[in-house]
């Protein structure tokens, strides 16, 4: 019997190794898998490369992982925010590497990795600082920049509900990067508010089919989510 549910947060993240590339879902706090991030901090893996839209807000979640000095490099689109003080300080001290990617290119690079695409030409960023040194090509009179896929060893994401096969539905705009990150990591670990019996999720409404998911952890405690 397939059962992707894992009894504890610590067991779910136990094999994340030093130097791993880890995608973390969420856009700001919406969809951020805070319980999994806290478990990763507890677990202690270091020298991580993190892929997220942002670089942490406030002092919790991703910001706490940065603050614990576990992150060597961050690949994101929008690090600087009113409450990104943890990242700002590390960056100013030269203690974290930043790869800045336009948000749509970030999403498409993740999607491409999950879909087995070797790279793609995008008009986004053409003629800007963020395309410097990249291959460019004119196709039908329009200019494009070549971008490579973005893969990860692990993806940590948050969904509303899962079944034991790992089928997922999300909640509102907390969906954001979850479905694409789930496709692009070797091991996708999902924290969910509810685990439901097989057959209970409407197959027409499943957003991420379980084939993209390896582990599901129920986080029943609202404070922990």
């Amino acid at each position, binding site marked *: 019997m397939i059962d992707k549910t894992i009894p504890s947060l610590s067991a779910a993240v136990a094999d994340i190794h030093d130097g791993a590339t880890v995608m973390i879902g969420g856009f700001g706090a919406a969809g951020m898998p805070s319980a999994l991030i806290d478990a990763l901090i507890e677990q202690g893996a270091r020298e991580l490369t993190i892929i997220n839209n942002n670089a942490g807000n406030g002092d919790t979640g991703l910001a706490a992982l940065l603050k614990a000095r576990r992150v060597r490099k961050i690949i994101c689109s929008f690090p600087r925010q009113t409450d990104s003080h943890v990242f700002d300080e590390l960056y100013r001290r030269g203690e974290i590497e930043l790869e800045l990617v336009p*948000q*749509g290119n970030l999403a498409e690079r993740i999607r491409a990795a999950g879909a087995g695409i070797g790279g793609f030409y995008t008009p986004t960023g053409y003629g800007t*600082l963020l395309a410097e040194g990249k291959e460019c090509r004119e196709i039908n009179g329009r200019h494009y920049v070549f971008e490579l896929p973005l893969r990860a060893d692990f993806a940590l994401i948050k969904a509303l509900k899962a079944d034991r096969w790992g089928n997922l539905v999300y909640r509102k705009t907390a969906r*954001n990067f979850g479905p694409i990150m789930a496709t692009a990591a070797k091991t996708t670990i999902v924290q969910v508010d509810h685990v439901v019996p097989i057959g209970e999720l409407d197959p027409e409404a499943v957003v991420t089919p379980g084939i993209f998911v390896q582990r599901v952890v129920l986080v029943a405690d609202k404070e922990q989510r």
Partner: protein
Amino acid sequence: MKRLTRVEMAQRVARDIPEGAYVNLGIGVPTLVANHIGDREVILHSENGVIGMGPAPAPGEEDGDLINAGKQFVTLLPGGAYFHHADSFAMMRGGHLDYCVLGAFQVSVRGDLANWHTGAAGAIPAVGGAMDLAIGAKKVFVMMEHLTKQGESKIVQQCSYPLTGMNCVSRIYTDLAMLDVAAEGLHVREIYSDIGFEELQELSGVPLIDSSAQGGAGR
């Protein structure tokens, strides 16, 4: 010198957004446009993954899972939908949005846009969806003050700030005028101040084409 307030600028931009349009309003001042759409059915998109976005929720009704790209709490109108980031940016990059309205540091006479980074030493760069919006929508409207606080024109021959996109702006709304970007240059369509075309051109510091209803080409 008379100039439009930000609310008046938003009202002016809103007048050009027709019934049925799919629109993305950039973070900051452009979001004011939403307040002036009236009873037209205009569908608002936000790049974090929502279309059919409604106004801010009533106090106490906020939902942390329902935010816009500016990370503000929003609501969803009946008929609205959620989707993941790759789909959201397909809507943008794929040319499916009719309009986007963006703020800007500078716009060049060719319609180059600079709005993401001052390039200042020590500044932490952040781009978000700015570059995707700049090249994605069918019409890209810029809404900005005509002059910086120091009185320098934000309409320039060539942007000195790092570019967001090349030759991507369709129309510029400022507190002084509305200008269309065309191959032959910038057409001044409307002037909102008590200054004339010549004075506007002087303040702008770049050659302009007088196409206002009162002016040369439009008369």
